[in-house]
């Protein structure tokens, strides 16, 4: 299977302490990949490195089939100021940024697309409502609507179902399934292993280093999960400098 995204020996560090350590892996094209691991395993950092929000101190991230990847990214804790006076429609329309940019006008086709996306996430009738009036679940739906409109080839989701109720989660998972049927590449950080097994054919198991990658059932073995859980979450001030080639 061809790779949508190729990580080659990627290390991302915060103040020299690695959060992602020498990870090399291919993310399969047009499939749904889950990223699993304990807290502090570097899952969010890995996604941020893929979007380019943090730089790898070592290694590189390649997009083999693209010159410029169209990526949509949903952060775990979005920095959205939810009190900001903006309507749902305007917020969702930002998904067309690559088409309309900073100065272009949103045409009827853009607005039509935004209305469809809002409809698809189950927020019909909310178009003119201010963002501040949405509940946490409705807000997550609105963010998904914006991603639908982004029409991205690669979609990165960081714990999208945290604090989201069962019905909203089911609705949003249906959207993920639709992306899969469209052969888009989805990478999703998740904690619920049943969810992973049910909806994500591929899995990366991380514990700062890559523990396992591949078909979900082969990656999420009891032995692998145990190894991941054993990862020390400590930040060792006395840690030695890591020289490539040395055994960790």
């Amino acid at each position, binding site marked *: 299977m061809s790779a949508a995204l190729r990580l080659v020996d990627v290390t991302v560090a915060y103040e020299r302490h690695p959060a992602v350590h020498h990870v090399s892996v291919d993310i399969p094209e047009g499939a749904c990949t889950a990223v699993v691991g304990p807290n502090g395993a570097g899952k969010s950092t890995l996604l941020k490195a893929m*979007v*380019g*929000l943090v730089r790898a101190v070592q290694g590189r991230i390649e997009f083999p089939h693209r010159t410029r990847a169209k*990526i949509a*990214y949903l*952060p775990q804790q*979005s*920095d*959205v*100021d939810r009190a*900001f*006076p*903006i*309507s749902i429609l305007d*917020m969702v329309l*930002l998904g067309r*940024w*690559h088409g309309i940019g*900073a*100065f272009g006008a949103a045409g009827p086709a853009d607005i039509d697309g935004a209305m469809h996306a809002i409809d698809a996430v189950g927020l019909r009738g909310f178009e003119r409502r*201010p*963002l501040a009036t949405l509940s946490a679940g409705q807000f997550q739906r609105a963010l998904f609507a914006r991603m639908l409109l982004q029409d991205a080839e690669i979609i990165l989701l960081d714990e999208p179902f945290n604090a989201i109720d069962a019905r909203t989660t089911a609705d949003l998972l249906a959207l993920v399934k639709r992306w899969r049927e469209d052969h888009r590449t989805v990478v999703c950080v998740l904690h619920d292993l049943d969810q992973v097994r049910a909806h994500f054919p591929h899995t990366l198991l991380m514990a700062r280093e890559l523990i396992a990658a591949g078909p979900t059932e082969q990656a999420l073995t009891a032995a692998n999960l145990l190894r991941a859980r054993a990862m020390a979450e400590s930040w060792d001030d006395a840690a030695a400098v890591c020289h490539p080639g040395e055994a960790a």
Partner: protein
Amino acid sequence: MEFLSDFLVSPFVEHGFMRRALVACLALSIGSCTVGVFLILRRMSLMGDALAHALLPGAAIGFLLGGLSLPAMSAGGFVAGIATALLSGMVARFTALREDASFAAAYLTALALGVMIVSLKGSTVDLMHILFGSILAVDDLSLSLVASTASLTLLGMAAIYRPLVVECFNPGFLAAVGVRGALYHYAFLALAVLNMVAAFQALGTLMALGLLLLPAVAASFWARQVVTMSLVALPMAAASGFVGLLISYHAGVPSGPAIVLVASLFYVVSLLLGTHDSVRLRIAPPAHLRA
């Protein structure tokens, strides 16, 4: 009736400087209401205030070199304002000091420096003029400065509007689609400084922010969208200028405090009676709906 026209109209009919001051205030209102709304939305009200004080040493150096000459003082003020904004931003970015603390430090330094420089050469009257504004000094040149500022602000805000909105409410999204939000932030700061420079002639450096910020704060009690907030702020700013100038004329007080006090009155009334989050709604909340 005659009394009213004597009181409200004749100061402007009889005195050229009152007409110029009025036009200056109106132009200022048109340009600055959007800037004021964004200062609030970016939670930068106090930083904006600090920035306005930071104009003083620049204006003072201009005064030292050119006397009470508007171009010299304005240019000095603009350079000082931009320098303070950039330096405070950099201090905040490269050290552990938070941006509000670095702004406060910068503004105290600037205020002390400015008063010191003006006192070296000028009289207390000069100092009063620079600190609190003087409508008598509004000449044709300052009028064209204010008018150019207003035009430039409207065009500039139109140009950076969308990225600025996104930078305000979702900077991470802007970064993820590959836009450098900081550029728009600094463009906005430059426009804000420009407006304060234009305002300090009439309002003084201590209250240059008054006409930008107070109407915008008042408008936030009446409107809930960027555009409508600006539209509500505009007439309040214009009315503050008009009434404030009349008070300044009739009572013989500096124009800056007079204009800012009228704007404060708009703020207090909005706080009490506004349609969003006002005291009135807190005391007697309307009955809740079924859904």
